[in-house]
């Protein structure tokens, strides 16, 4: 990891603090997919310290919306493909070409 790289947890923590929110306040606003309420402060704390990863694209989109961080950026930090791209991965050559393009852009 380079000195300038940022983890998913660090990005969430930094954006939360910039908004003046406590972990408890942010956790209360992030709703679980199963409609069973909000995530727990413990879970958010583990995510912020990179002990756990967000369990679904739904959670990543929640963080994106609440913290105003681009969704694609958070998916990249989480090491996941956005849900809408997963259905487009049937052609290996196109996936490889897409990653080459992605890599080239990042290295520029």
């Amino acid at each position, binding site marked *: 990891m380079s000195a300038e790289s940022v983890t998913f947890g660090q990005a969430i*923590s930094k954006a939360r*603090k910039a908004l003046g929110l*406590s*972990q408890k*306040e942010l956790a209360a606003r992030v709703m679980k997919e199963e409609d069973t309420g909000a995530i727990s*402060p*413990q879970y958010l*704390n*583990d995510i912020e310290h990179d002990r756990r990863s967000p369990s679904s694209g739904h959670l990543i989109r929640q963080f994106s919306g609440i913290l105003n961080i681009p969704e694609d950026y958070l998916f990249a930090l989480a090491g996941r493909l956005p849900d809408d791209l997963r259905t487009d991965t049937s052609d290996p050559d196109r996936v490889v070409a897409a990653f080459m393009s992605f890599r080239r852009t990042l290295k520029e």
Partner: protein
Amino acid sequence: MVKMIPDNTGRFAKRPFFTEKELDGDCERLIRELLLKRHGKVEYPVLTDDLTVLIENHDAELDCYADLRAYGDDVEGVTEFFPEKGPKVSISEHISGDDRRENRYRTTLTHEFGHVKFHGPLWAEKFATGDLLDRRPHANKAVSKRDNILNAPHHHSINDLVEFLAGTSRDALVR
């Protein structure tokens, strides 16, 4: 101007000398500013949630649900200081994750805040002057056990001002 006196613990060349009145005043001001900013009014007792934000507002990373068993079974808080970044405060998940231990959680948060606020500048100076030769495993850490949180001395003539300051600021913040 803070009065500096020799540090008998050997941890620092000199340490600041505060009276309890000075510490009370500092803590009162800090908490008023925080509450006004977050809630638009000053109301006691301070919420536990506000105490976590108070720590984070002082450039500290806060891990509220840490596994501190490596430091010993009775350790409830640890504050680590680093040359290149702000301090890291870790609170044992055994007290933060248990509603029945809310008061212990609060006193530990404020105790560790005392380390961040009042000892951070000492560590910054120590690092800035290249005083990095102390290689003991926990040399850059304030490890807080339950007993030294509750019994932090309340008299300024004690040898280890570290615990004194942390204990006094704790009382001023959570009353």
